[in-house]
């Protein structure tokens, strides 16, 4: 990384066009790669905001009867933290990577509907802005101008006008409605792109797993965001047009909202985690120097997970007093989903078995992902056993469990993806030393926070409480959880510093820094406009392997 290279790079940008022109280009772009980057930047911004909200909660809970923030502020923080992290961090970042990578990996020049793509992104951004505008324009359970405080799943009838006067709940509703339409647009776009834009020779059975898994994810988006949008519209009808869907004061059903929400909510977990599986399925083979073990089974297991995930929603509702038969049914479906999930973990292990494992940063994060996702799955089985869940649901155990999924699983896979594809996206490598520091700090902070957090849960500490009584045996665990949260915060700062530093001064990556096998590594870094000068033709799942090993191509075995 010589300084004159830097200089030419900067010079190019500054001489070619003014910053206003650059801004205009990015704001009006319909290019899948730029939209991908915009999604990712939006998500990073909200990741920092959501992280600050988490930190405020952790400071408040550091010791019993703390008065760092009022209950009203605390309730807003957990509502905003959950909503932000799910809808404006993980979903956009996954859409961002899908947008960027899917056309490149299937040998296409763009998505099927570039303008729909841009529209979807700006809807998501608008949703995020609306949500945060509530800090200025809304008012909540307790009065004057502030953010929603009804929890991220916004159970009825807390959202009815009797209990949520003012507009904070409306901002929440409309933010999710608007960004939901954006998600549906992206879902349609991904399905159309993957089904109709593949390059010659790329049959469905030769598609990279990342494309397959995003196809399944997009299908889930269409099926599960729609009931959420419907429920949001019903809630608006209740609040403004005198409807009584969920308004229990007038005979509406609070349980109906729970069903609507979790029919969305559980597939949503898989909308978030399937792209994480996709990253692991691309990265683990490359750093094990072997093809993915059991490709058809991996595809089948993903489809099975998606299918079964549509029938498990009421395991979020074991405590609402369903009949013993309903409870048993949802226990069965919930436990069945462990089978295809287990198959995936075993196949990743099978991929590593007999390989030559290279411990580059993306692989370190993938190993963390495997290990933590295993534990998250096992605590999930515990909660799948309904009677055990009667104790665990609504406690800090469940908070620890889903953070294990989202942070320990999804976020670790996501960091792996950042370190793996950053060179392709920016043309520069991320710094290895800072990467290792990021990995180990985050690993230590993560385990300190979320391993420990299981314990107050089994000791009877409910979630969503702004303070707790001393002497219940919860104090020390909460203190450790808070310290771990700060270590994670430092790790995230190291990561952001690495992104900025490496973007400006990282060594040049070249086309194919990892000696990988999928099509995105055949073009320059960053890829040229419209990706491929001539559309490639593929003969196997690993076209670059065939190119590098003409004596022993994959196409001979598939």
């Amino acid at each position, binding site marked *: 990384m010589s300084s004159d290279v830097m200089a030419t790079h900067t010079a190019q940008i500054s001489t070619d066009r003014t910053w206003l022109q650059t801004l205009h280009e990015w704001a009006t772009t319909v290019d899948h790669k730029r939209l991908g980057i915009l999604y990712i930047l939006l998500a990073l911004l909200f990741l920092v905001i959501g992280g600050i909200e988490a930190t405020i909660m952790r400071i408040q809970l550091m010791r019993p009867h703390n008065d760092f923030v009022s209950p009203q502020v605390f309730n807003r923080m957990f509502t905003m933290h959950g909503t932000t992290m799910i809808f404006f961090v993980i979903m956009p970042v996954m859409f961002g990577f899908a947008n960027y990578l899917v056309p490149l990996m299937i040998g296409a020049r763009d998505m099927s509907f570039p303008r729909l793509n841009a529209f979807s992104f700006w809807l998501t951004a608008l949703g995020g802005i609306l949500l945060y505008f509530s800090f200025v324009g809304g008012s909540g359970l307790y009065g004057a101008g502030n953010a929603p405080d009804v929890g991220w799943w916004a159970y009825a009838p807390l959202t009815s006008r009797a209990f949520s006067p003012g507009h904070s709940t409306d901002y929440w509703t409309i933010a999710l409605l608007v960004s939901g339409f954006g998600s549906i647009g992206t879902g349609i776009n991904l399905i159309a792109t993957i089904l109709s834009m593949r390059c010659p020779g790329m049959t469905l059975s030769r598609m990279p797993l990342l494309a397959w898994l995003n196809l399944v994810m997009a299908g889930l988006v269409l099926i599960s965001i729609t009931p959420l949008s419907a429920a949001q519209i019903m809630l608006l009808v209740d609040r403004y047009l005198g409807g009584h869907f969920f308004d229990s004061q007038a005979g509406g059903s609070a349980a109906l909202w729970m069903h609507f929400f979790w029919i969305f909510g559980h597939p949503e977990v898989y909308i978030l985690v399937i792209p994480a599986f996709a990253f692991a399925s691309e990265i683990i083979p490359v750093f094990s120097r072997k093809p993915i073990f059991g*490709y058809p089974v991996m595809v089948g297991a993903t489809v099975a997970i998606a299918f079964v995930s549509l029938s498990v929603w009421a395991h979020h509702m074991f405590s609402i007093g369903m009949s013993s038969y309903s409870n048993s049914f949802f226990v069965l479906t919930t436990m069945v989903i462990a089978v295809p999930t287990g198959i995936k973990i075993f196949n990743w292990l099978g991929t590593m078995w007999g390989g030559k494992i290279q411990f580059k940063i993306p692989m370190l994060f993938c190993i963390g992902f495997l290990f933590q996702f295993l534990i998250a799955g096992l605590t999930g089985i515990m909660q799948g056993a309904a*009677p055990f869940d009667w104790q665990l649901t609504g406690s800090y155990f469940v908070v620890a469990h889903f953070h294990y999924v989202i942070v320990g699983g999804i976020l670790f896979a996501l960091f792996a993806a950042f370190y793996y594809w950053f060179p392709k996206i920016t043309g520069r490598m991320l710094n290895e030393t800072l990467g290792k520091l990021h990995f180990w700090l985050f690993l230590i902070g993560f385990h300190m926070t979320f391993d420990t957090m299981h314990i107050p849960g089994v000791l009877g500490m409910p979630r969503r409480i702004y303070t707790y009584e001393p002497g219940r045996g919860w104090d020390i665990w909460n203190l450790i959880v808070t310290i771990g949260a700060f270590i994670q915060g430092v790790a995230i700062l190291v990561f952001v510093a690495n992104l900025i530093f490496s973007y400006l001064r990282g060594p040049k990556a070249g086309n194919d820094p990892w000696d990988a096998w999928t099509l995105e590594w055949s073009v320059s870094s960053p890829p040229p406009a419209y990706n491929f000068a001539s559309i490639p033709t593929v003969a196997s799942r690993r076209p670059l392997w065939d190119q590098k090993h003409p004596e022993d191509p994959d196409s001979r075995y598939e």
Partner: protein
Amino acid sequence: MAEKHKTEWPVLVGRATGVFVLLGGILLAASLCNATAPSENAVPSIFEPHSTPAELIRHLSYFVLVITGLIFLVVFILLTYVIVKFRNKTLADGREPAQVYGSTQIELAWTIIPILIVVVLFLATARVIHAIQDARKPATAVEVTAIGHQFWWEFRYPALGIVTANELHVPVSDPAHPTPTFLKLLSADTDHSFWVPQLAGKTDLIPNRVNETWVDPQQTGIYFGQCAQYCGTQHAKMLLRVSVDSPEEFAAWVQAQKQPAKQDEKEIAGRHVFETTACINCHAVGGTNATGRFGPDLTHLMSRSTIASGAAENTPENLRLWIQNPDAIKPGSLMPAMKLSDNDLDALARYLEALR
């Protein structure tokens, strides 16, 4: 490169130990922290049950923990083995490892074995669901209606004609002659959840819906719990305690609670304040014309050890503070600040303190 990565193994081993500590710690912490006198139960651990539903759940949870623990061990050992055995082999010779694409036999093995495990787990779970949810109510059962309010608990004993709040009294249940308590769960406003970890799992209180749960505590003492479903601003201080009484104590408590409020002529001034201010809109005092239902019944206020749904000890100072400035104890509660004159406050406090 090779040396560099060897340093990671101690850390990985450390991580493994960390997880065993976690799994063991969940159990140990639960039992160790609870090493207080049995009648206190300060730590409401789910692994220290004193009632049949919680006991059944503990059995099931040990079973599930053992199975998931074994799965964890197997996969974790495999993962560690793979990482150590196949780590960082040099690619200097330019040779890639053998390219293996999959194996049908192995795939079948790791599909069928988990299916068998799932069947076992499901059957064990379904049995406990049935045992708890479909338990028969014996004729000797005590019946209670629990109504969740923002942010307190109303307890009504329809057969005994008792209404109280926040502190549930139930008789101890001798397994030979069970006297379980069956609770009918209702909500007056938003969703709540009844959770006393040592007695039973959670059951939600949902408006327009009648839920049920039951407990048969086998040891006397105080058991702590609290609302476990976010219900609004003061969800955190919607605390709950269950007093498990010996049969004699329970009979005496019932006898005392059945009486109308004691009317002491000395406290007529305080009663007048109560009945001519906003107090009467929300609170009831048995045998007077105070019949409000939005707030806790105060007929036997002084028989309770806490006020504000467990947020404060029931002391004269706290009671006065609660009347004048509820936000000082429980910000966001629905009790209004009464802003009484000192004279009126003194009189009112004396009146309330006489409600035994």
